[in-house]
């Protein structure tokens, strides 16, 4: 069918490909025997990708059933599934999930708002930068979870401390990224805006804010990750509700199935929220070359 020639002998050596055209309907080998619909069958990509996780789950189940993996190390997948169903049915999981989500959202919205306001102040004015930027940069280097002892002394072990820790963790990523975004706007665009006669308010609204939006989204995603992380941590201190409470409670009773369920919840929610941000980006940043469709 294919004829490749690579002539190295002559001085004007050449490489040529001569391929005969293949006619539609021309069949080779065993596929002639298959019915038409089966011949054209293509397994969807995601099904193929699911194969190895399913195989792993099966192995895990078999190992648990055979006593290779004791239950106090980790529960069998079937047991985890059963417990999950029971917790959903009884409404227990929903209750804890709601409490956790509420904490994360309240902390996140306060933290993001603070970060945005601070970034606007120091990004848009030189004076603001002088006043705000260096203290914020110094505070940024303190890991927020290291503040736990101090916060407990100041605010007690109630809800306030939990929210405050999430706030502290989520403010800085937004601040850092939005500030960099505002300062990183192409000066040529600012120049163009000046020749077009935009005043300062219009410059901020039409040029600087839309231009720094992609950086804001980067910061927002970091903040979301951190709010989740902080949640896991703060819900281990003196709580009676929330996914973190569920996990630490399960630890005390050696319920590895419940602990795995908590981990699952964290990862599924993380994925969902990331998907939400991606959708928001598609709308807000529709002008970006990666999103633009002709």
């Amino acid at each position, binding site marked *: 069918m294919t004829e490749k020639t690579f002539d190295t002998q002559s001085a004007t050596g050449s490489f040529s490909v001569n391929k005969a055209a293949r006619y539609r309907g021309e069949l080779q080998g065993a596929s002639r025997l298959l019915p038409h619909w089966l011949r054209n069958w293509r397994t969807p990509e995601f099904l193929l990708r699911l194969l190895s996780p399913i195989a792993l789950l099966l192995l895990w189940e078999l190992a648990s059933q055979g006593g290779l993996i004791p239950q106090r190390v980790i529960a069998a997948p079937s047991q985890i599934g059963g417990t999950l169903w029971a917790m959903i049915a009884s409404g227990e999981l929903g209750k804890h999930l709601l409490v956790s989500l509420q904490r994360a959202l309240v902390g996140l919205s306060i933290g993001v708002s603070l970060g945005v306001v601070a970034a606007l102040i120091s990004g848009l004015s030189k004076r603001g930068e002088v006043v705000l930027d260096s203290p914020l940069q110094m505070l940024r280097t303190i890991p927020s979870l290291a503040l736990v002892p101090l916060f407990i002394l100041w605010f007690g072990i109630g809800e306030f401390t939990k929210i405050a820790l999430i706030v502290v963790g989520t403010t800085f990523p937004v601040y850092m990224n939005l500030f960099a975004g505002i300062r990183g706007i192409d000066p*040529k*665009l600012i*120049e*163009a*805006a*000046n*020749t*077009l*006669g*935009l005043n300062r308010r*219009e410059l901020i609204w*039409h*040029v600087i804010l*839309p*231009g720094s*939006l992609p950086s804001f989204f980067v910061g927002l995603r970091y903040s979301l990750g951190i709010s989740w992380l902080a949640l896991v941590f703060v819900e281990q201190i003196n709580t009676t509700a929330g996914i973190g409470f569920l996990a630490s409670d399960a630890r005390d009773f050696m319920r590895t199935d419940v602990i795995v369920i908590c981990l699952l919840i964290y990862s599924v929610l993380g994925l969902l929220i990331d998907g939400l941000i991606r959708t928001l980006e598609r709308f807000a*940043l*529709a*002008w*970006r*070359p990666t999103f*633009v469709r*002709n």
Partner: protein
Amino acid sequence: MSNIDHLDPSKSAHSAAPVQLRNVVRQFGEQRVIDGLDLDIAPGEFVALLGASGSGKTTLLRSLAGLDSIDSGQLLVPKARAAVFQEPRLMPWKRAWKNVILGLHIPNAKARAVQALTEVGLAHRLDAYPATLSGGEAQRVALARGLVREPKLLLLDEPFAALDALTRIRMHRLIIELWRKHTPAVLLVTHDVDEAILLADRVIVLANGKIAEQVSIDLPRARDTGQPGFQAIRARLLNLLGVEVESAVVAELQAPISTVRRFAHG
């Protein structure tokens, strides 16, 4: 002391030159980028500015656009001016028509934008984001954005330099068409000698921050490089810019050429 005046359209006499520069100096440190420059541009005149890199072309254009100040001298420019740069400098987050009317406070803004984009042949790309436009299309949007402001002075800073040769030819035709229609005074900064001769009424050669030479181009329009007299002007300008031209062309240059008129400078 620098002295920058904006022309008040109500007071300006009909014949007054919209652009008047007297003994303008701009220096960065010890280096005088513009050194005692005098320049008048008449209403509706198309002036091209040639010069080697570092001759002060871009600095001059930036001063006229109000992006840079001058250190001494007098500079008179109309308030209604627009600039088109080498890169289109469109806001990537705004659709083409919104880019055109950015910063304008007029009723029926959309209608004006549609009209301006139709003029540059982009009526079908009104809602396109800049990222989806080709280089030529983006530059035409930038042109529409300048002209929709009805400028008395249009500043063009190598606007065709980044375009491919075919697009450039189309843009040359378009710019002449629009210039005829809107009659702004135009100052075109370019490296391309042919482009300068094709488009301009007058070509100014800048060297060391001063006008080294002015050549008035009296070739009839529409011009092309094969026109009688074109090559002679080209050779002359290239010589002024320090490029050796073959002797045959220079010999042709020696013959009396009525189309080349030299202005005394200063």
